[in-house]
């Protein structure tokens, strides 16, 4: 009886989800953020990744005529298990794990980032 009365006058135990979001703890492993401006194309993250979600690649720059190359980083969020190995491996702090999880995707899209290729530019200039 006491339990019934208590439950009658207390609010719901569950969260009312779309209106009330859960607070994530510090250090939760949510989605992976990449900052290409810090990246040095060293390849540590590709070697550390257990699932092969990160691939580093080079390609000809079709926007320019002088046969320069672009550095590309392909990241497949559907292969990624959010283990954080790449974050620990990156010596330049270019990868970061955010606390909120990634939104569900409609299509299996691989995100491609271009990494600023300063070495090539310097080499051409010198």
């Amino acid at each position, binding site marked *: 009886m006491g339990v019934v009365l208590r439950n009658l006058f207390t609010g719901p135990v569950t969260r009312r989800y779309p209106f009330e979001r859960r607070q994530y703890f510090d*250090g939760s492993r949510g989605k992976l953020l990449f900052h290409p401006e810090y990246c040095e194309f060293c390849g540590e993250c590709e070697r550390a990744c*257990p699932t092969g979600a990160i691939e580093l690649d080079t390609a000809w720059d079709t926007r320019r005529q002088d046969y320069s190359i672009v550095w590309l980083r392909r990241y497949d969020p559907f292969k990624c298990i959010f283990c954080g190995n790449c974050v620990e491996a990156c010596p330049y702090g270019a990868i970061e794990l955010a606390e909120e999880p990634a939104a569900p995707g409609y299509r299996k899209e691989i995100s491609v980032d271009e990494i600023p290729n300063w070495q090539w530019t310097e080499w051409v200039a010198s």
Partner: protein
Amino acid sequence: MARVTFPFGPQHPVLPEPVQLILTCEDEKVVEVKPRIGYMHRGIEKGCELNPYKHNVFLCERICGICSFIHAEAYCEVIEKAMGIEVPPRAKYLRVFWAELSRMHSHLLWLGLFADGFGLESLFMQCWRARELVLDVLELTSGHRVIQSTCVVGGVRKDLDPDQIRTVREMLKQFKELYTPIFQVFQHDRTIKSRTWGKGILPKDVAWQLGAVGPTIRGSGWAFDARMDGYAAYGELGFEPVVEEGCDSYARMMVRAREVWQSWELVNLVLDRLPAGEINVPVEDNPKGEAIHRAEQPRGEVIYYCRGDGSPNLKRLKVRTPSFANLPTLLVMLPGCELADVPVITLSIDPCIACTER
């Protein structure tokens, strides 16, 4: 009396995972049962031979979603044995910390499903509500609710800071308040006793002969637990297994319900005694030779075997999981019982098919 043979599963409301039992009934009595497995084979053992050995931790963790940390721990310990690595004491204690929290959440999940199996929906909700708190502790300390990914070869990846320890202690106190009434319901409720008391008898000697492990054999009166070996920090923490003499579903349920308390105490003990120091040692070379390791999972004893030849890939990894050892006991428990008791008795061994078939 005409005999009827029909399939039970692989898809059945009480079975969380696909296993098929082919039941032969006479009237309402089960006279024969044949389990059939093979619905979930994923080839993880082969996958482990193709990956570099350090990456396998994350694959082994995914053998089972419920006891994921203990799979990772057992894998790391077998590799450490093969390579002769000594893990720092703080890492050992932290491994016990996460392993016991995993056990708590696994047992609470199972107690909830068991309550659901005999129709007590609100008890199911209460168990999972208490489990949510344990999952919060796991997320706070490791960054993820279910797949912790904190164990690596050579130690652990995350450390606890004093702030976290204070919060965890607070949450564990809340958990005690939540779980005490639930435990009393499991212990004393008449409805639960009428569905479990004297059902699914597994006699003491038969349990040993069939090689049952975990709560299934401890519910039949054997003090048999891989944690008694004292791997990780269990030796220093002074571990005593929980044993019940009943040999029936009730005894197996009580073993798990009491083990939640035991794990709760172990987690508190780890927080009290956590030694200072490093949390991992760098590991450079590759495993060579073979090793075998036993660890205790929520469902029983898991055995890892590995063989390496000095290359980054293992030559062989073999995992013997607890549910595979526990499935044959159904052949003894089920014949002679009522058809309506089949779901409850099947659940009482906590079948984890994802482990069994890997």
